[in-house]
């Protein structure tokens, strides 16, 4: 029995009818709303490429039913920049070469957003620990960690 899902995604309200209960949030975002920045990686709750902010929490959108998004506030990678102004995390990944193929990057950035909310002044160990749910098969993580630390510094000095 299909449902209706009303959700706010990246500040915009969506009203989607005929949402099948088995539809996963990641497919809802990609196929129904056209927000293809959120990637399907492992599709088995391991890699975190599909990470989005769901009611303020970073979650794996491949492991959440879209019908649960009814009434939810969601931010995807498309909603992270402020118009043309990249978020410091996005700049950090650019500056520190935090990506090679880029497939894991949207998920990394969404997880890192949560990380910096919960730990505004993280040390390297904290960054590594809090990114445990995101896999990258290119970089060996070193530059990703540096990108997040770079962003943390930038955000701290902007807030000061």
């Amino acid at each position, binding site marked *: 029995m299909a449902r209706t899902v009303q959700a706010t995604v990246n500040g915009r309200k969506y009203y989607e009818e005929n949402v099948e209960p088995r539809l996963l949030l990641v497919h809802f975002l990609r196929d129904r709303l056209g927000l293809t920045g959120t990637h399907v990686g492992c599709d088995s709750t391991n890699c975190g490429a599909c990470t989005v902010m769901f009611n303020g929490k970073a979650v794996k959108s491949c*492991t959440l039913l879209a019908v649960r998004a009814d009434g939810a506030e969601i931010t995807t990678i498309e909603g992270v920049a402020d118009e043309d102004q990249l978020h410091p995390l996005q700049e950090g990944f650019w500056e520190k070469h935090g990506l090679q193929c880029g497939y894991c990057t949207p998920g990394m950035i969404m997880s890192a957003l949560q990380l910096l909310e919960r730990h505004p002044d993280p040390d390297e160990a904290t960054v590594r620990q809090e990114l*445990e*749910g*995101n896999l990258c098969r290119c970089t060996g993580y070193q530059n990703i960690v540096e990108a997040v630390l770079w962003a943390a510094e930038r955000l701290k000095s902007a807030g000061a």
Partner: protein
Amino acid sequence: MIPRAFEYFDPATLEEAVGLLEQHGEDAKLMAGGQSLLPMMKLRMVSPAVVVDLWRLPELDYIRRDDGVVRVGAMATHYALHSSPLIRTTLPALADAARVVGDPLVRNLGTIGGSAAHAAYNADYPAVLVALNAELLAVGPDGKRSIPAVDFFTDTFTTCLEPTEIVTDILIPVPGSGARSAYLKLSRRGTDFAIVGVAAALTEGEGGHCADARVVLTGVGDVPVRVTEAEEILQAGPLDAERMAEAGEAAKRNLDPPSDVQADAQYRVDVSGVYVRRAVAAAWQRS
């Protein structure tokens, strides 16, 4: 991967949820955080005809203290538990376990009630719930009942719950003065289940003695395994490093762990000794 189609209900009351279970019996599966059930449904290891989703029951999502008992709603997330000052200070082993379930993203959705009812043999909570003398409350067509954790887990992926029952609350007695606890997990990567996990709940007595010890392992049997011989050693004299090592060796005796893709049985036995020693030391250092 897409789950097989199912009929979906997200009831607004517990009574309604129990009614749905009565109506659909074995065809229905309860969903809490969905972090174990959905991956299994996507792999089509399970394909329930009916999913009863508990997400609209906020009364099951709470953490509070009532007199001598810490009460946790079944829908409290792992993140809520490990970031709760009440849990960190009164039940540190529970906070330790909640901190290492899955990964940060899984911990934002996964729940303690869901994990307990899923009852994987290598999950983190079962050992802790047994070590801390927890009771689980379940509601069904005949009302509520209370189940000691030690009786709750009956086999891997199996609990004593009837198909029409729902875990609603977890009650853990606030430990007395001198009590301290820790949970320590060995796993290869962040998202993995435990190869071995050890929950140690100790109570300091007089003269540097441990007056009471409960040491429970996960990952080494179908249900949480209490190592009573090790507990007796811990209580037999002043608790120093040597005694902790002796208890670790004792814990290895009579273990009959499974072999799986992560580790073979002998490896699990060997690291059980090390992790019992370390978990006891970690608990003992807390005050």
